[in-house]
Structures are given as structure tokens and as C-alpha cells.
């Protein structure tokens, strides 16, 4: 999965919850999903950040 897709799905879930469109019964399920997506994004972000920093470091030389 791509970061952008993940982040968009995450945003969609947050919006649905905020708007009260989700029943209490589904809620915990959604939250679980969101939590999973968030973790995915974070790890993606971290790895990207590491890559970029490495490249930019080379650049300065």
C-alpha cells in the first residue's frame, strides 16, 4: 500500500467518526483500522525520512 492511499483512508475514517456516521458497534472496529493505518504511515514516513537524509547528506559533500 502506498502512503497516500493509507493516509486518505485514515482521513476518511476520522471524518466519518467525527461526523457521527459510525455506530458505536462499528466504532471500535474502525478505530482498530485507523490505528493500523496510522502505524503504516508512520513507518513509511520514517523510512522515507531516513532515505532523504542519506541522499541530502551525500549532496553536501
Amino acid at each position, binding site marked *: 500500500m502506498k502512503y497516500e492511499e493509507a*493516509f486518505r483512508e485514515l482521513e476518511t475514517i*476520522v471524518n466519518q467518526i467525527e461526523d457521527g456516521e459510525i455506530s*458505536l*458497534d462499528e*466504532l*471500535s472496529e474502525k*478505530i482498530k483500522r485507523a490505528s493500523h493505518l496510522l502505524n503504516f504511515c508512520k513507518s513509511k514516513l520514517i523510512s*522515507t*525520512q531516513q532515505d532523504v537524509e542519506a541522499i541530502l547528506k551525500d*549532496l553536501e559533500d
Partner: protein
Amino acid sequence: MTENYYTLSQITEHVRKLISRTYTQEYWIKAEIAQLNYYPKSGHCYPDLVEKNETGVKAQIRGVIWKGSYERILEKFRNTTGRQLTEGMEILFKARLDYSSSYGFAFHISDIDPEFSLGKMAAEKLKSISRLKDEHVFFANKALNFPFFPKRIAIISVETSKGFHDFKNIVDNNTRGYRFFYMLFPALLQGDEAVDSIAFQLERIRKVIRHFDLVAIIRGGGGDVGLNCYNDYNLARLVATFPIPVISGIGHSTNETVVEMVAHKNAITPTDLAYFLQQKFDNIAVGLDRMKAILQSVPSDQIADSKNLLYKLGERIKNRQQLYIHHKNEQLFNAQIRLLKYSKRFIPHKKESLLSKSLKLSQLPTNRIARNQESLHFLSSHLKKSSKHFIKSIWQKTHHTEEKITLLDPVEILKKGFSITRVNGKIVKGIKEIKEGDLIENQFSDGKTESKILKISK
């Protein structure tokens, strides 16, 4: 038969006495001399005196002038008027009326007033002048051109007259050798007969007019007597209208006569007339001499001037050609100087512009590369900054989302003391959905409980 009668002598005697008693003194009387009746032998004169009007004789009476009176009266008359007593003349005379039994009435004339006749003559002269003027002939002869060369002269004179002699003397014996041609047309020059005589000769001259340049009327030595003929209208008219100029040299001391007035020129005396003509020749001779002098000097001068001009022109050619060639030389020299000057300048000028290009060429690329390096460096640092910023912003978004999820998780709500009530597994949102005695299930954050509804209150 009538017995009472007088003898003729008785009557005439009576008349004579009457007249002599009545006309005791002399009177001044005006009358015309009808006939002079002068008798040279006795020296007496018996003029017929008349007064005329338009129709004829109005009055007539005989006059008597005795020899002694006549000579005295005539001399005085001639001296004053320049005229003889003539028939047709009106006179003012002093006379006594006399009656003689045998001769009848007569005026014994003791004096004649010459001043009266003079006035009469002057009046007649004025009349002639005004008539000639009225007829536009008064100036006719004067208007003719005087001949340029008055060589041929028709002379009206008397062979024996002193005037003619004087004239001839001057004209024939002039020192300059001028030759005039003249021909005498003899005429009476004074007295009443002169009018016809002169007129006759003028007519003759008219016949041969092509042979003559002018007419000269010459009279001299005759004194001032008998000149009234020259006041005659007819004669004056003839002179005025004559086709060639008429010159008068009548020679007198009285006033100018009408003929002299209308003549082309009045030379006064025959001598003057001769000199006048000679003067005309003189003028021509002087003109000829002057022209001869000009002919002798001017052409030589002209030739001399031309020679001089020619000489100057020759000199100018010499000078100008030198100037010309000198000028051309200068032009060439200038062209050479300029050629040298500008040719030498030409290449250094080109070198200069080449040098400026060379200078630019050595500077411009270095500048250019430096500029490129700068912008590359700028981009590089920009890239770093933007990348870091990019990642940072994504981190922010992620954190934000994480916070939201945490807040929305029901577990977290239950932890704060809330619980979820269910009836038959269904979430209860209000008391209407339950009744007393229902069995309900309560879920807490850390477990579930089951309980029964005892009472519902509102």
C-alpha cells in the same frame, strides 16, 4: 411874274457872312480822305473829305491845305506815323469852315493830328494780328523747321537798296569761304504799293520753291517811313502761310510790324540777317570740326584701349594658368596627405575594436560560469530546505490524525466513568426503549455487568 428875287451873289454873300459870323474859330474834325488831290506843281492839296456809313457816303466836303501848311503838316505826320497821307486814311484835322461864293464850302486845314492816325494804325495792326491768330496762321511760318543747311535764299529786295548791298557784302565776302546761293526777286519795299509788289514776288518764288531753302525780305536805308505796308493783313497772311521759312531784315527802329512778327525769324537788319545765316554755317562747320577731332582721336584711343585689354588678357592667361596648376597641385598634395593620414589610422582603429571584443571574450564566459554556479548552489540549498520542510509537514499531519483517533476511541471514554447499556444485545439510547423488569447488560472499560430494571422514573 415874281418881282421879289435875289441875285445869286446876294445869297452867297449872305451865306458867307452868316458862316463867317457863325464859324469864327477852328475845330478838330474827324474824316476820311477820299481823294488826296495833291498838286505837286503848286504844292497845294485839296483833299476830298468824307464820312461813310454802311450804305455809303454820309457827308462830304472839300478840304484845302496850302503849300506852306502842307509841307509842315506832312513832315510832322511822317515823322510820327512813318506814313504818307494816303487816300482811305482817316485823319483828325484842325480846320476852319470857309465859304467862297465861287467854290462853295471848304475846310481850311491848318493841322493834322498824327497821334490820331498813329492810334488808328495801331488798332488796325492789332486787328490784323488777332485775325491771323483767329485763323490759326499767325505761327504757321514759325512752325516750319528751319532748314538745316540754309544755303539757297530767295531775296525780296531792291537791287539798289543799301540793305541788299550790305547783305551781299557779308555773305559773299565771308572769311571762311562759305558759299551761299541767292537770287533777287525785286519788289517795292515801302509804301502802300509794297503790299502788292511783295505779294507778287512771293507768288513767283512759290513757283520755283524747290530751288530755295528760305525767303529773305531785305530792306535797308529807307528810314522808318512807309513801313505800314508790313502791317497789312493780306501781306502778313501771305508771309505767315508761305511754305518755306521767311526771314525779315527790314531795318527800322519802330515797333515790330506784323510781317516781322509772323516771319520765321526777324533778323531786324539785313546785316544781322546775313550774320544769322553765316552763323548757321558756322554751327555746321564747328560741328564738323568737332566730329573730325573725335574721328582723329577716339578710334586711335579705342585701338590703344583694345591693345591694352588684349595685353592684360594675355597677362591674365599667364597668371591664371599658373594659379590653376598651383591649385591642382595643392589639391593633389592634400589628397596625398589625407590618403597617408587616414590609411595609417585605418588599421589601428580596426585593432582597437578587435581588442575590445577580445577583452569582452576573456571576461564574459567566466562571469557566465560563476553565475551558473551561484544559481546551482542556490537550488541545492533550496532543495535541502524544502525536503526537510516537506517531511516535517507530513509529520505534523500524521500527529494530528493520531490525536484525533485517540480522542474518538470509546475505550478511552469508558475509562472516564461512562458505560454502554444494552437490552437483548441492543444499545439503549433512552428510557423509552426499556421497561421495568427488563434485564440489561452494562459494559465498562474493564468488563461487563448484568442487572434488572426495578423502577423507571422520568
